């Protein structure tokens, strides 16, 4: 190796191996896919030796809760095989609540305690049993006291689980109409006399989707 070569090398000195190991650790952790040695070489500072650093990193994770593993010709960090049972809880399938359900929930939250007839009056369409059942099952609403009116209808109230999910301290902390408007949430209000038909159609669709939801 000539003098000029070694001079150049010192100018672009690669980081110490321990530092390369840190870098690879961070890259493998943050990458959504396994990373090849070629990719590591491209991302690490010039002159680094990912293959060598990988050997060390892999050794460092031996016996730990996660392992540095080779997937095809690429590398990734994975849970140690014997701890797979801990990951069972990680699989939760989330689905968006239907429009009928979220509207029903909103009415109960704002008007609790609230009977089914009152919900229907406010929404202007019938509330299907499935919608209420779903909210009960989610433990976001529960039965409140019966109303002392003819028929003694049951009422619904929201639960602590509801407050936890929506990050509220109490249902009274929900913003009122004025505040909703200030926050820009009441923007698209139809003006009196305009597009009453469009509005109606929307409502009918809600009704239908609700009827066919279950």
């Amino acid at each position, binding site marked *: 190796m000539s003098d000029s070569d070694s001079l150049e090398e010192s100018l672009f000195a690669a980081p110490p191996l321990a530092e390369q190991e840190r870098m690879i650790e*961070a890259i493998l*952790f*943050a*990458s*959504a*896919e396994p990373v090849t040695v070629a990719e590591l070489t491209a991302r690490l500072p010039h002159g680094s030796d990912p293959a060598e650093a990988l050997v060390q990193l892999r050794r460092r994770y031996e016996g730990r809760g996660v392992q540095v593993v080779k997937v095809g010709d690429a590398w*990734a*960090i994975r*849970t140690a095989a014997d701890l797979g049972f801990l*990951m*069972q*809880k*990680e*699989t*939760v*399938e*989330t*689905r*968006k*609540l239907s*429009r009928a*359900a*979220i*509207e029903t*929930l*909103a*009415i109960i*939250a*704002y008007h609790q305690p609230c009977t089914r007839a009152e919900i*229907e*009056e*406010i929404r*202007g*369409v*019938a509330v299907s049993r499935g919608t209420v059942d*779903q909210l009960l099952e*989610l433990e976001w609403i529960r039965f409140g006291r019966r109303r002392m009116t003819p028929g003694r209808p049951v009422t619904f109230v929201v639960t602590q689980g509801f407050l936890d999910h*929506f990050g*509220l301290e109490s249902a009274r902390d*929900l*913003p009122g*109409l004025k505040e*909703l*408007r200030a*926050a820009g*949430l*009441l923007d*698209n*209000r*139809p003006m*009196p006399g305009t597009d*009453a*038909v469009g*509005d*109606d*159609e929307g409502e*009918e669709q809600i*009704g*239908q989707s609700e*009827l066919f939801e279950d």
Partner: protein
Amino acid sequence: MAEAEEFREDVLPVADRLAAEALIVDVDGFEGPLDLLLTLSRTQKVDLRRISVLNLAEQYLKFVNDAKILRIELAADYLVMAAWLAFLKSRLLLPPDPAEDGPSGEELAAHLAFQLERLQAMREVAARLMARDQKGRDFFVRGLPEDVTRLRRVSYSATLLDLMQAYARIRTRDEFRPYALDRDSVFTMEQALERMRGLIGFAGEWTDLSAYLPQGWGGDPARRRSATASTFAATLELAKQGQIELRQDDVFAAISIRRKPA
């Protein structure tokens, strides 16, 4: 004291005067009167705690005056602040009237200085906050969160925003239409079902569904839609129970029903 400051203003270096003029052109760039006052206060080149509020009030009033001369429309809150500062200036300049209640000029000036200092402080910490290492920019989360699929649980998600938007949607709908009216043009599925149960005994032949709409619900489009929807839903329910049969010859064609032959 005040005179000395006025005098000082007269001998402002050219650079400062240019800066003051630039302010005028830039009036849209300010986020309210307090922001403007904070910017003006910088020309005093002293710690905010030692600022001359009187001098500042005069700078502000001059700014508003210049804007008027240049026919720049100032928002109302700038003018409100100008009126208040003019009042403050008079309080600071005139000897206190013992007969008059209320806070002294000094107290009001001290509060204004506090407000400026607080705004300045919030700006500084906001900048420090944004200069921190941030997620997704300086540090990163696991790129490949692992899910070992063994247990599957369906969780329904809805955010607070969804909830509030839903409520806003409903209430906006209601605002211009009293409930009583709504009730009048809604024919519920329960009503339709009850009605249909009484009628299907007579439905031996294929009959167009529209013939089953209740009286008085065929005219107004809103009422007709509601009655059609609920009557249709009721027939589906009856079909499910095996009491009637439904038929539709083509997409979007009329729907006919008849009692299920025994």
